[in-house]
């Protein structure tokens, strides 16, 4: 276990679609728009590739927050992927809320390739939110903690 | 922040208007029924706020000539809403004078049946906050 008085540094997984949000994250990078290092990005082809299993898996392994970024509705590279992702995530988040997981540990944001600023802002906000929520104890699997 | 800047910020905050959105088309002035009565024209009003010259606005005749008909608000293609800026400037002036508003009980005696409905409505808009 980490030492108690250390500042809480959350583990945050960000799934980004290859065409919009990953490029948006790249733009945030090339524009030097900082956000905390707690965010680690996983590249997926489309937001619709993200299985609820992946999100629960991240929590199981000790993630404190999971964010999914995709193209804006209507702009999906595959034309409809994010619409499916939107329904899936809405239902999943609602279920997590229903079983008592704090609201705000999960988030979906639509970030285009041109929205480096939005990407950075979103990540800053999300990290802030997760820090305020503290460590994820309700979904984690104790065996997976260091 | 200087006093003038501060005042300009206040006007923006009260009106919720961003004068930077103005593209200087002048449709507000084109549409204004009180245009000829005004010393600072509606479109100039926007740039005065943008430039922070609130002093001039506070002392202008225009401030009290605006009918608050909101034709400029309605027609502005950029959603700048000069009428709201003027309204906000009035608020600032009124507040500085320590007149925070009209008490409801004062209203009936001020009413005149000859007063047009629109004036009443705009008066309420102006003073009810």
């Amino acid at each position: 276990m980490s030492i108690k008085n250390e500042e809480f540094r959350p583990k945050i997984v960000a799934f980004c679609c290859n065409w919009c949000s990953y490029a948006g994250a790249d733009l945030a990078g090339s524009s030097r728009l900082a956000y905390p290092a707690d965010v680690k990005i996983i590249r997926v082809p489309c937001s619709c590739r993200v299985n609820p299993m992946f999100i629960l898996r991240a929590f199981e392994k000790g993630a404190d927050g999971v964010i999914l970024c995709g193209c804006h509705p209507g702009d999906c590279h595959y034309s409809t992927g994010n619409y499916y992702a939107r329904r899936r995530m809405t239902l999943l988040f609602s279920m997590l809320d229903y079983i008592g997981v704090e609201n705000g540990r999960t988030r979906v944001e639509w970030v285009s390739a041109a929205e480096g600023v939005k990407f950075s802002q979103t990540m800053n906000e999300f990290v802030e939110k997760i820090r305020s929520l503290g460590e994820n104890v309700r979904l984690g699997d104790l065996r997976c903690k260091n | 922040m200087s006093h003038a800047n501060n005042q300009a910020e206040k006007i923006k905050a009260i009106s919720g208007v961003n004068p930077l959105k103005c593209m200087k088309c002048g449709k507000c002035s084109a549409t204004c029924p009180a245009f000829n009565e005004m010393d600072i024209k509606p479109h100039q009003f926007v740039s005065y706020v943008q430039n922070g010259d609130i002093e001039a606005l506070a002392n202008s005749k225009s401030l009290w000539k605006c009918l608050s008909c909101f034709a400029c608000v309605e027609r502005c293609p950029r959603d700048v809403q000069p009428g709201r800026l003027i309204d906000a400037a009035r608020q600032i002036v009124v507040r500085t004078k320590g007149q925070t508003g009209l008490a409801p009980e004062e209203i009936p005696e001020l009413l005149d049946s000859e007063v047009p409905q629109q004036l009443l409505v705009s008066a309420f808009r102006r003073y009810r906050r």
Partner: protein
Amino acid sequence: MQELITRAKELLENGTVARVLGWKAGDLPYNPEPAYFTNAEELKDFVYNGFCGANLSKYMIEASKLEGKTLVCLKPCDTYSFNQLLKEHRVDREKAYIVGVGCKGKLNIEKVKSFGIKGIESVFGAEMTDNADTLTFQTIYGEKTCSYAEAMLERCHVCKGKEHVIYDELIGESKDTKDAERFAEVEKIEAMSPEEKFAFFQKELSKCIRCNACRNVCPACSCRKCVFDSTKFDSAQKANVDSFEEKMFHIIRAFHVAGRCTDCGECSRVCPQGIPLHLFNRKFIKDINELYGEFQAGADAETKGPLTNFTFDDAEPSIVANR
């Protein structure tokens, strides 16, 4: 029941069907079990009464592979499951001869036992022909009674209606037994604080022994191989060790059947630990109805399911936090 047996014999004899899928008496007076009957002789064991809660539609997946038609007895709510399976190409309509059987609400023996009725030797009032509102039990402690309605399964209190949505013929009268709000329980949980919600599900789910009865009985959970048995998600063969495991299992199970679950309530009926598993499915159904429009899985075999569909102006996921 006699009418049913007579008709089944007839259809077997004239070769319309090769077998009958129904129920036979179990070792106790209240636990009939699903069974195949291939001739008139075997049909002597056929029973159909208030304890025949099992949804036989899922058996039709295997029966569809057999030679000839299978006569299957489906209650009104079971026909929704059959339709859903039909939509997913899991059953063959041509291989099924559906007899829509009457239903006046099915009984929950656990409920009966909770009334203190134990050591049951025989039951009266559970037959389809009985019109009594009271069940009478001959027990080793003497005669006991209870109200039929009170002993019903939870799902019968929120009955979807007495109409069969797919059938070849109907035998017997049905009754709409709805006397409760379908989403009342879900709403009660929704109104709780996050801490209370968490405590509630922690308490319920910690009873889970991962026996997979819910999964095996569920007509929607009909995958040849479940993701939880598959190597493809690195989630296979996990023992139920900690609190997260069963949450993950039940959330994902509910998610996989979301938009496909007909709310038949079999999961809750068979859970040996008495976990109200339908609360997961029903939450999804409630959300789907509220966000994407009323949808009843299995109402027909054509309409696109809500998770394989979308509209351009669906709610954003942030609605969950803002509700």
